[in-house]
């Protein structure tokens, strides 16, 4: 069963709110876009995690703690 995505649209001038369900190509475009956004976000988080691991390895090789590095860089 496909996910139901509801959209609520409010007009400021009239105060009228219309609620509708995304269907067909509009729904497909929404889901594809949302999947791409999440992939983009995950890639950024993965890159950050890899960098954190690399940083920890360098600190271990140098025998420094995070606090000592912060002191050096301050």
């Amino acid at each position, binding site marked *: 069963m496909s996910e139901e995505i509801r959209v609520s649209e409010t007009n400021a001038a009239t105060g009228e709110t219309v609620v509708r369900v995304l269907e067909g190509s509009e729904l497909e475009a929404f889901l594809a876009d949302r999947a791409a956004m999440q992939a983009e976000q995950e890639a950024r988080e993965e890159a950050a995690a890899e960098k*954190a691991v690399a940083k920890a390895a360098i600190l271990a090789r140098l025998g420094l703690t995070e606090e000592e590095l912060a002191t050096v860089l301050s």
Partner: protein
Amino acid sequence: MGRARDLANILSSSGNVALDSEIALTLITPTSITATGGSATSSISSTGTVSFTSASAISLNGCFTSTYDNYRIIFTLTASSGNPSITFRVRSGASDKTAADYYFGGWNNQISVGPVGSYRGTGLTQWSIGDISSAQAARYFTIMDIANPFGTTATKASYTGHYGNASDFWGYGVGAMIADSTSYDGFTMISSTGTITGKISVYGYKN
């Protein structure tokens, strides 16, 4: 576009009622808003502030116009489902810009461990504007100054914010740009997963 002002803000330094042209920041009422999500609701207050509940995305349309070049946007959250990342897109004609023209770079500092991750991105389809940690959405806050969104030169922004949980705290600051020359009249705040509840206010800076 409607505008509203507090009485305290409409007196000029001489004690007279200030003219529109003398007011530095004006709260803007978007022409319409769109909340996306299973049980999302949203509303526009009489002053122009937008409130939304349980939305996976909240869009403000018609808030950038030729009246102002620069704007301040204030984002506050009070609840979330899950721990989403929060992102931002500009939009025009009630459609988000989804092309990979978003750039941002900045810092993100977690008080317990120092600088975290790589808070930057090139050729993305959105700007990152913080995260929710341990469902503590009420500790999220972001303030953004956005330059020239309605004009047809590149849209730029600077934004800072913070988020936290019961035992830790993150603060971040970013410079951002959209590499195109399109005019935008609105924007969307997006929850990467689950939903968010909060408020958004948009102010125009006097030209």
